């Protein structure tokens, strides 16, 4: 397990069973620092179960999760968030009537310094606006203005606000669960650009996606799931899209040794 770059998140032999169904049959997983790692797989391959383990939504029956080389146990998604892991969902997690800056800081509002904040619980709106604008500029995310209501934005921009929020608050990594599934082609492009911008800031991203062209556009490595296991960890430069699909569907053997079921 000596990689060129350090591993931010790692799992070893994760098993998750639901009754007689084994959703995950011993999954190894590794996320390097500063990479976009795509997790792909057919329906029922176990990718969403794996994501739930990584984001703290469920606990595995066996195996361990390591964050920065340390074994950890998430008690809830909030626990994962406290440890610096942010998750973006397919569902738009924005309040349409609130403005962009308010949405960015929703649930994590900044209060004024001094007695105004401490005693009167006063929000620091100017600072939230300023910081929100700065983050959007850094992410090269072009928006009409930070005080526009989110409902004035296109679907891609709305999801962009949720992605930007994850990028701003994540200290370790960002997990994106099908973030573009509900979006059109051009809107998807906006979100993919954001994913690249997040990586360029140095944050690793786990991208769960069905969409092969999207995966090949942004991913540095591809983790292929099949039947509850990782069957390949490949590089989009070394494998073609057709190869990866073949591995995913079982038409071609993967690169990871698969123990007999």
């Amino acid at each position, binding site marked *: 397990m000596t990689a060129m770059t350090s591993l931010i998140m790692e799992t070893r032999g994760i098993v998750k069973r639901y009754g007689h169904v084994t959703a995950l049959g011993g999954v190894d997983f590794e996320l390097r620092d500063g990479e976009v790692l795509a997790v792909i797989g057919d329906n029922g391959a176990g990718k969403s179960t794996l994501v739930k383990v990584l984001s703290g939504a469920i606990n595995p029956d066996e195996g361990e999760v390591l964050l920065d080389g340390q074994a950890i146990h998430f008690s809830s998604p*909030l626990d994962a*968030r406290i440890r610096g892991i942010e998750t973006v*969902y397919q*569902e*738009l*997690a*924005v*309040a*349409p*009537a*609130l403005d962009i800056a*308010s949405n960015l800081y*929703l*649930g*994590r*509002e900044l*209060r004024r310094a001094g007695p105004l904040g401490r005693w*009167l*619980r*006063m*929000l620091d709106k100017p600072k939230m606006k300023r910081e929100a604008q700065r983050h959007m500029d850094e992410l090269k995310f*072009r928006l*009409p203005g930070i005080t*526009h209501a989110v*409902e*004035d*934005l*296109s679907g*891609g*921009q709305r999801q962009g606000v949720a992605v930007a*929020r994850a990028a701003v608050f994540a200290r370790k990594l960002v997990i994106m669960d099908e973030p573009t599934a509900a979006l059109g082609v*051009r809107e*998807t*492009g*906006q979100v*993919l*650009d954001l994913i*690249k911008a997040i990586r360029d800031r140095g944050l690793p991203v786990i991208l769960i996606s069905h969409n092969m062209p999207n995966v090949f*556009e942004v991913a540095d490595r591809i983790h292929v799931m099949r039947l509850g296991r990782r069957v390949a960890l490949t590089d989009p430069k070394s494998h073609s899209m057709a190869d990866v699909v073949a591995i995913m569907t079982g038409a071609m053997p993967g690169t990871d040794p698969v123990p007999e079921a």
Partner: protein
Amino acid sequence: MSTTISAPPSDVKPKRGFGSILQTLARPPIGSLIVLIAFCVIFSIVTNTFLAPSNLSLVVQQSVIVGTLAIGETLVILTAGIDLANGSIAVLGTIIAGRLVNDGYDALGCLVLAIVVCTLVGVVSGTLVSRLKLPPFIVTLGLLGIVTAATRLISQGGAFPVTDDLLSWTGNVFTLGTTPVTYGMVIMLGLYALIWYILTQTAWGRQVYAIGNSPSAARLVGIPVGRRILSVYTFAALLYGLGAWLALGRIPNADPNALQTANLDSITAVVIGGTSLFGGRGNIWGTLIGTLIVGVLRNGLTLVGIDPLWQDLVTGVLVIAAVALDQLSRWRRM
């Protein structure tokens, strides 16, 4: 580097013409403010008594109880809920305080107890809505019946005249220039200012809007939605308790049959004030304006000598118009 077409600088959907006028009117409290000013102008032209300071003061005095209940109602409606029990909770408060003081207990203690009991009713409704996920309409409809019956049981059918200075203090008058002002008016306006601050300047307020606007998003970003909703119903009921005190000042007689339409009147004020029944959109000053519109209408029509039934008719039209405006502007936003 990127194969995607980058977006043009602005993706904002253009809003012009009729749509933008609609948007402006639907942005509370602009539309309701225009209506209030229009009524004031009309009544000051057709009567020569409407603008007299004592008359304007009377309009506000008559609006104090519903105006205060409507503050709590606004909070509840902002979370996409509804509270049908607010008037009955306030009456319960007046009966508890009125009866106990009549029985010879200390007035301050009785007043505090009455407000605490009102607040506890809010804890019950908030718990049922947030924990058991029961529809607010049903919960507060049930509580309306329960609280009304409890009030009758406590009062044993009778009313309690209030002679205590503390209980009726909110009806005391001082003059500002030539305008008579009651302490109740000052308390109500103070509560509006306080709730404006809480709703617009604190995280709690912003989260209340977010919960009403998109509960799933609020949950996903980690807002404790259930706890916030419980706190909204509790806080609203505390305001109803204060409304009870204001009611005792306005009419110093604790009557179990009072304020029977206050729940619908307060919802009317909230809706005319531009707060959306779908939750997440609204403005507390709009509610004050909505309350005043109803007050001005009643007062003005009486001064002109028009049958007060017209007041109900016009109010009904305004409610439907306000909801239609909200609905239309929602469609345009889709």
